[in-house]
C-alpha cells in the first residue's frame, strides 16, 4: 500500500474544511487550507512516483467494493501507471500554481472561501478521474469535474450570463456523459466488467471480425463523452461561454486540466480504439475540424478570454487529432505542454484583466508593455510556445502531432499546418493589441502582486523548457511509437507557418493598424459569419432548444397531459355527471314521486316473481 488515496483525499479534506468552516475563517486560514492541501497532494504525488520507480506495471490499490450486483462488481480502486503519472504531475503541479495565483487574483472577491472550496473539490474529482482503475470510478471523476466546472463558471451567480453559462456547460457535458454511460453499459454487456484490467486484454484478444461492430460502437460512444468534456465538435459550444467564470478557473479547468480529460480518456482506452479503426478515423477528423474551426473563430474575437478559449478548443482539437491518428504519446505530450502555456496565457490574461480592473476587451487595451512588463514577458513566453517557435515547448509537441498526422494522412498534416499559422496569428494578435500601440482605455494599470507573478514565472519557465521533457518516450511502453520519423522538411514547413502567422499579426496590428479593419470589411459576410461563431449557438437554439421547450409546453404538457389524458379522465367524469343529472330527476324531493317509483318497482317484482313463476 502506497496510500494512493491520500492524493485525492487531501484536496477533499481541504474542500470540507473550507466548505464548512470557511465562512467564519480569515482569508489567511482559507488560503493555508486550500493551497496547503493541494501542495501536500502534489508532494505526495512526487513521493509516490519516486517510490514507485519505473512503473513498468501499474500499481493498483483497492479500498472497498462500491457497487456489487449480479455480474457487476465495481470497486473503489485507484491505480498509477506512466500515463497517470504524467497526468498527476500536470494536474497537481499546475493546480498548485493556479491555487497560489488565485490567492492574489480573488483577494477582492466575495465568497472567497467558496471559491477555494470548489477549487479543492475540483482537484479531488480530477485526481479521481486520472487515478481511477475502472470506468465507473472514472465516470465519478468525469461527472464530478463537470459539477465543479458548473459551480465555478457560475461563481459570480449574480450575473445571469454566468449562471446560464454554467448550466450550458453542465448540460452539454451531460450529453457527452450520456455517450460515456452508454459505452459503459456496452462494455459490461460485452466484457462483464468495467475494470481496465479486465476489458483491455479481452478487447485485444477479440478476433477482428467481432471487433468491427461492438468495439467501434463502444469507442464511438466513449468519444461522444470526450467531445463533451474536451469541447470538440459538435459539443464545444459550452467552453467559450465558460469564460464567465473567474480567470483562474478558466486556466485550471477550462484550459489545463478538465478539458483534457477527454484526451486522457481516449488515450487510456487506446486498447479499445486501436481495435476500431473506423472510430479512430472519426476521432481524428473531428479533432482536425474542431482545430480549424475554433482557430478561425479565434481570429476574430475581441474578448481576450474568448480568444484564448477558442484557442483552447483548437488546441484540444490537435490533441484529439493526435489520439485519432494513433499518436497517443504525442497527444498526452501536447496535453502537458498545452497545460503549461495555456494556463500561462489565461493567468497572464487574468493578470492583465486584474491590472485593468476587469476590462476584457482587447480594443480597450493597448500599450500595456511598459506598464505591466512582467506580465508581458510571461505572456510572450506562452505565445511563442503556442505558436510553435523552436525550441519552446509547443514546437515539440505540435510537431509530434503533425508528423503523426502526416504519417496517417498527408492532408491532415496540411490542414494542421494552416491551423498552426492561424494559431500563431490570433495569439500574437491578442498580444500585440494588448501590449503594443497606444493605450485605448482610461485605466491606470498596476502590476499584479507577487502571489500572481510567481506562478506566472514558473509556468513561463515550463512553457519555454517543457518541450525537453521526453513524455512520448516515457509513455512508449504504453503507446509504442508508430514509426513516425522526423522529416526536416515537414518540421520546417510547420515552423514557417507559425512564423508567418506571427509576421502577419505584426503587420496587421503593429506596423499597419488600419489593415485589420479594412480586411475585415472586405471579407464582409465571411467575416461576420466567423465573428458570430458560425451562428452555431443560434442554430442549436433554433433546432434543438426551442423545439424541445416549445414542444414540451404546447404538445406534451398542455396537449397530452392536460388535453388528452386529463381530458379523457374528465370526459369520463363528465359522462358520469350527465348520467347523474339524468338520474337526479328521479330524486325530485317529492315524496309521492318516490312512492310512485316504489309502486312501479313492487309491481315489477310481483310480475316477475308471481306471474312469471318466480315463486315456484
Amino acid at each position, binding site marked *: 500500500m502506497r496510500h494512493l488515496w491520500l492524493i485525492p483525499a487531501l484536496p477533499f479534506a481541504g474542500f470540507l474544511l473550507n466548505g464548512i468552516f470557511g465562512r467564519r475563517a480569515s482569508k489567511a486560514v482559507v488560503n493555508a487550507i486550500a493551497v496547503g492541501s493541494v501542495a501536500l497532494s502534489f508532494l505526495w504525488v512526487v513521493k509516490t512516483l519516486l517510490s514507485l520507480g519505473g512503473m513498468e506495471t501499474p500499481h493498483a490499490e483497492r479500498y472497498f467494493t462500491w457497487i456489487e450486483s449480479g455480474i457487476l462488481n465495481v470497486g473503489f480502486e485507484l491505480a498509477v501507471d506512466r500515463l497517470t503519472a504524467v497526468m498527476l504531475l500536470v494536474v497537481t503541479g499546475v493546480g498548485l500554481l493556479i491555487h497560489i495565483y488565485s490567492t492574489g487574483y480573488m483577494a477582492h472577491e466575495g465568497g472567497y472561501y467558496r471559491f477555494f472550496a470548489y477549487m479543492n473539490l475540483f482537484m479531488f474529482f480530477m485526481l479521481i478521474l486520472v487515478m481511477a482503475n475502472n470506468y465507473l470510478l472514472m465516470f465519478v471523476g468525469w461527472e464530478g469535474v463537470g459539477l465543479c466546472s458548473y459551480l465555478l463558471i457560475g461563481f459570480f451567480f449574480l450575473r445571469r450570463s454566468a449562471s446560464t453559462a454554467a448550466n450550458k456547460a453542465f448540460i452539454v457535458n451531460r450529453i457527452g456523459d450520456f455517450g460515456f454511460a452508454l459505452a459503459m453499459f456496452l462494455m459490461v454487456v460485452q466484457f462483464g466488467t468495467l475494470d481496465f484490467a479486465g476489458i483491455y486484454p479481452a478487447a485485444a484478444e477479440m478476433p477482428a471480425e467481432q471487433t468491427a461492430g461492438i468495439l467501434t460502437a463502444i469507442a464511438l460512444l466513449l468519444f461522444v463523452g470526450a467531445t463533451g468534456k474536451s469541447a470538440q465538435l459538435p459539443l464545444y459550444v459550452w467552453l467559450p461561454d465558460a469564460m464567465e467564470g473567474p480567470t483562474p478557473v478558466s486556466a485550471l479547468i477550462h484550459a489545463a486540466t478538465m478539458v483534457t480529460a477527454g484526451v486522457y480518456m481516449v488515450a487510456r482506452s487506446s486498447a479499445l480504439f486501436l481495435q476500431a479503426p473506423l472510430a479512430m478515423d472519426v476521432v481524428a477528423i473531428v479533432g482536425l475540424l474542431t482545430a480549424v474551426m475554433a482557430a478561425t473563430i479565434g481570429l476574430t474575437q475581441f474578448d481576450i478570454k474568448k480568444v484564448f478559449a477558442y484557442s483552447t478548443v483548437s488546441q484540444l482539437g490537435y490533441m484529439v487529432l493526435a489520439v485519432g491518428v494513433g499518436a497517443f504519446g504525442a497527444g498526452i505530450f501536447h496535453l502537458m505542454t498545452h497545460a503549461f502555456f495555456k494556463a500561462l496565457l489565461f493567468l497572464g490574461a487574468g493578470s492583465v484583466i486584474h491590472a485593468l480592473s476587469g476590462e476584457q476587451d482587447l480594443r480597450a487595451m493597448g500599450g500595456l508593455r511598459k506598464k505591466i512588463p512582467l506580465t508581458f514577458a510571461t505572456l510572450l513566453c506562452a505565445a511563442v510556445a503556442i505558436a510553435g517557435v523552436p525550441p519552446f515547448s509547443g514546437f515539440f509537441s505540435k510537431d509530434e502531432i503533425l508528423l503523426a498526422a502526416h504519417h496517417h494522412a498527408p492532408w491532415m498534416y496540411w490542414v494542421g499546418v494552416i491551423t498552426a499559422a492561424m494559431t500563431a496569428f490570433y495569439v500574437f494578435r491578442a498580444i500585440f493589441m494588448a501590449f503594443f500601440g497606444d493605450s485605448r482605455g482610461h485605466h491606470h494599470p498596476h502590476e499584479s502582486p507577487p502571489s500572481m507573478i510567481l506562478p506566472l514565472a514558473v509556468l513561463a519557465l515550463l512553457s519555454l523548457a517543457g518541450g525537453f521533457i521526453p513524455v512520448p518516450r516515457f509513455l512508449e511502453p504504453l503507446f509504442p511509437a508508430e514509426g513516425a520519423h522526423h522529416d526536416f522538411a515537414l518540421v520546417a514547413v510547420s515552423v514557417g507557418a507559425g512564423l508567418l502567422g506571427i509576421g502577419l499579426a505584426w503587420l496587421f496590428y503593429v506596423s499597419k493598424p488600419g489593415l485589420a479593419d479594412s480586411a475585415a470589411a472586405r471579407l464582409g459576410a465571411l467575416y461576420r459569419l466567423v465573428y458570430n461563431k458560425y451562428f452555431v449557438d443560434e442554430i442549436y437554439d433554433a433546432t434543438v432548444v426551442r423545439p424541445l421547450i416549445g414542444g414540451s409546453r404546447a404538445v406534451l404538457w398542455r396537449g397530452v397531459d392536460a388535453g388528452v389524458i386529463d381530458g379523457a379522465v374528465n370526459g369520463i367524469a363528465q359522462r358520469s355527471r350527465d348520467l347523474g343529472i339524468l338520474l*337526479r330527476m328521479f*330524486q*325530485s*324531493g*317529492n*315524496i*309521492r314521486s318516490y*312512492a*310512485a317509483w316504489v*309502486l312501479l318497482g313492487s309491481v315489477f317484482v310481483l310480475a316477475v316473481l308471481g306471474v312469471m313463476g318466480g315463486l315456484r
Partner: protein
Amino acid sequence: MEGAPLSWYLILSAILFALGVAGFLFRRNIITVFMCIELMLNAVNLSFIAFSHKLNQVDGHIYAFFVMVVAAAEAAVGLAIILTVFKNRASLAIDDVSSMKY
C-alpha cells in the same frame, strides 16, 4: 263448518293496502298521507293474522304486535315532525316539503 276462504282475507288485505297506496299517492295533506300509511300497516297486519290462522302458529300475532309497536313509535315521532314542519312552513301540503333532495 263453512268459513270464508283464506284468500278472501288476503284479498281484503290487498284491497286495503292498495287503498293506502292510493291515499299516499293522491292525497296532499301530510296528516292524511300519514294515516294512509297506518292503513297500509293495518292491511299487512291482517295478512299476518290470516296466515297465522292458516299455519296454526302464533308467531304472526307477535309480528302484528311488533308492527303496532312500531306504528305507535312512528306515530309519535311522525306527528312531532309534522308539528315542526307546520311550524316552519305554515303548511300541511306534502309537496311543499321537498328540500331534502340531493
